[in-house]
């Protein structure tokens, strides 16, 4: 046994040599480095081809659009554009660019940079997945679909190097909000052309050393599956405002490991919290756990092409027998709110006048009514992607339907890609789904349910609904727009091709040293306002 003792003594020596050092979070105070838990590894850093939330966190540091998001979620703030004029009909925007805005190599950021970036984003052969962000611009959709090939016909022009003119099809009060989204930010043309053509997918321009951005930070280091580091850009027009020296984005896709990292002082902010720990942390660390309202809805998608779900009464009965209050209080347990509409209510502006009650008795009578020609609702599948949270919720709903309607539901969990593919080809009965808005406006939700939209996937089609969305788009005032949206939302909640369950919350851990971080519906926290202080 002597040898083993020697070994363990040796190990203890090594271990004790490593102990007792200050944590990364402690030393970050001096260095002003933000350690950021960023979910999954970014696919790429090309704003025109990526789609994910982790990528958006990094691109917010590296690129800046005409406007930037307000740290408290209010109206956008000036970014590259120092000011803008909107015509009376709300369809023409003239942006005045600041002459102090430069790329990280010193080149000025000009109006033509935006024109070229938008041309690239809309070029059909690039295969951008977010071209609809610019579809409000005159002829943008036509260009993206290859109906026209002359980009000069698209409603964006550089009047001078500092002035950008944008013409819209419809007055779009949310348009400034879109301009804060990463897909509409400029890209550095000479760099992209150095590594490929306008439509080259996956060229080397996004690598450290190649990437030229105009944001408050520049790309310093990118180690795949390990860390992506950005450092302060001294050439940024508002560099004085930027207090952080670096941000290190860690791709931590495992909630348990992320939790350990946070507890060991290796992260300032996490992307999530392990489900089972939310109640414990809420009690024990109320200062560290953050449960913020979030612009997203958790819902069930119903395949209305399948019997018996083609019958509105059946869908209604299913919805009426779900106790949403019970679900948020005892199943999801993360401060979520029962949803009564598809669009999450924004207490400051849009508040849909709809309701979704829990009334099993009414549900049963509706089912009786619907069953006139049918024997019984057959056993059907509730599809969800493999995850503990979705599973618990599916089980709760399964039980509610059994208890209240005596309907048997079979739970089916599949991996993410199978789950997506089965919905897109309509091979499902009912599936869980979630949607997070890209900007704060009902359009980002309601547009999805228009006939034939890629994310509709329910087979539901209602011409009155489609008309109301067109009307909303053409409404001259926000008030009238919302009126049309309210009407559309009422149709949706009456028809229920989707059954809303709850409004999401953003649950994460945040170190108390992080200042200038305000909760907001889109969960965006522009880094120029963030700093570390104890």
């Amino acid at each position, binding site marked *: 046994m002597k040898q083993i003792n020697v070994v363990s003594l040796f190990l203890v020596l090594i271990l004790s040599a490593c102990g007792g050092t200050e944590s990364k979070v402690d030393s970050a105070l001096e260095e002003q480095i933000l350690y950021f838990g960023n979910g999954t590894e970014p696919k790429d850093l090309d704003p025109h081809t990526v789609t994910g939330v982790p990528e958006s966190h990094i691109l917010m540091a590296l690129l800046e659009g005409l406007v930037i998001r307000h740290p408290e979620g209010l109206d956008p703030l000036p970014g590259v554009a120092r000011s803008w004029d909107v015509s009376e009909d709300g369809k023409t925007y003239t942006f005045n660019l600041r002459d102090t805005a430069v790329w990280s190599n010193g080149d000025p950021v000009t109006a033509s940079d935006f024109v070229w970036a938008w041309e690239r984003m809309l070029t059909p052969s690039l295969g951008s997945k977010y071209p609809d962000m610019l579809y409000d611009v005159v002829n943008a959709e036509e260009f993206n679909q290859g109906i026209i090939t002359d980009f000069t016909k698209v409603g964006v022009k550089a009047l001078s190097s500092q002035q950008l003119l944008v013409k819209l099809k419809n007055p779009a009060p949310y348009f400034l909000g879109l301009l804060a989204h990463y897909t509409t930010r400029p890209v550095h043309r000479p760099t992209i052309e150095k590594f490929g053509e306008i439509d080259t997918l*996956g060229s080397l321009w996004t690598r450290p050393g190649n990437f030229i951005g105009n944001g408050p930070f520049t790309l310093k280091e990118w180690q795949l599956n*390990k860390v992506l580091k950005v450092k302060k850009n001294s050439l940024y027009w508002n560099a004085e405002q930027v207090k952080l020296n670096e941000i290190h984005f860690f791709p931590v896709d495992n909630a348990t490991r992320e939790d*350990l990292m946070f507890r060991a002082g290796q992260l300032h902010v996490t992307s999530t919290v392990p489900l089972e720990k939310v109640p414990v942390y809420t009690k024990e660390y109320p200062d560290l756990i953050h449960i913020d309202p979030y612009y997203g809805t958790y819902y069930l998608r119903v395949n209305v092409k399948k019997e018996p779900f083609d019958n509105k009464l059946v869908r209604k009965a299913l919805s009426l027998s779900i106790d949403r209050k019970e679900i948020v209080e005892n199943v999801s347990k993360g401060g979520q709110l029962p949803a009564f509409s598809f669009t999450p209510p924004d207490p400051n502006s849009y508040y849909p006048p709809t309701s979704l009650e829990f009334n099993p008795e009414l549900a049963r009578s509706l089912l009786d009514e619907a069953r006139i020609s049918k024997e019984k609702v057959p056993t059907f599948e509730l599809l969800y992607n493999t995850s503990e949270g979705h599973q618990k919720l599916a089980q709760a709903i399964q039980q509610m339907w059994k208890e209240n309607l005596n309907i048997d539901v079979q739970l089916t969990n599949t991996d993410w890609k199978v789950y997506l593919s089965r919905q897109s080809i309509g091979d499902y009965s009912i599936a869980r789904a979630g949607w997070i808005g890209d900007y704060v406006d009902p359009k980002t939700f309601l547009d999805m349910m228009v006939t034939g939209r890629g*994310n509709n996937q329910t087979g539901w089609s209602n011409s009155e609904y489609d008309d109301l969305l067109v009307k909303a788009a053409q409404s001259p005032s926000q008030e009238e727009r919302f009126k049309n949206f309210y009407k559309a939302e009422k149709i949706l909640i009456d028809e229920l091709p989707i059954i809303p369950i709850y409004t999401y919350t953003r649950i994460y851990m945040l170190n108390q040293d992080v200042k200038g971080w305000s909760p907001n519906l889109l969960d965006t926290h522009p880094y120029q306002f963030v700093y570390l202080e104890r």
Partner: protein
Amino acid sequence: MISLILKRLATAIPVLLAVITLTFFMVHSAPGGPFDEEKAVSPEVLLKLNERYNLNEPLMVQYFDYLGNVLQGDFGPSFRYPSRSVTELISIGLPITFELALYAILFALMLGIIAGVISSLRPNTAYDYIPMTVAMAGICIPSIILGPSLTLIFGIWLNWLPVTGWGDIPGDKILPTITLGTAYAAYCARLTRGGMLEILNQDFIRTARAKGLSEFRVVVVHALRGGLTPVIAFLGPAMAGLLAGSFVVETIFGIPGLGRFYVEAAFNRDYTMILGTSIFFSCLIISFNLLSDLVAASLNPRLRDQ
């Protein structure tokens, strides 16, 4: 010896071909494609993407195209990381996984051989039972439990070691090494014990003892050489298993190795990456098995003639 190598290489070719063919058709028949995303992709964009990655051709054409590319050493671009090739991803992940596997095997050998020798010297006493019980426990505890437990004890409660990372914070390689190496250390211990027991009963050991050599010399110089043969035969498959099976430990500790790429590729339907890593791992396993056979043959003359 040369004929052994040639024979092995000749059997390797059909094995690799079978791996490529099976993997190719399996990944392509799995439901869900690489471009299925939450935000539905329009049919036009999907068409463009399929064209770009040669997915619009009939499957047999794609298969032969792929074989042709592999023969030229081109594994193609990754679907998940559009700006990176499969070769680049392997070259990023491999050195890290290799380093981890190497530390784990060294840890396993060090601990396993010592424990095995100790138990073989006094069989069926407490000196034998205790290390062997611990070894049995080591084989049984999966790394998915051992890793988080070690992290909790040494990382959070005692705050001695970092809970994650690889080469960032001093000491962050210790816990992954122990987690990955423990099961192999246990195997090593049992194999060493078995090998040693067989050798220690042989005549030449008795002769050595009769000559008056010290016990240390008898064990380390004479017995160990033969007693370790089973351990050495185990090394090849162990190293291959460590390399291909390190993904659990890599996930627990956030190590950016090849194992994680491999598993993620399957979830992402990253066809080229799944194929590339499968082929690569197959080659590794074949070479390590060959290598360990060669080492075993050179140590044990009886095997050389076979």
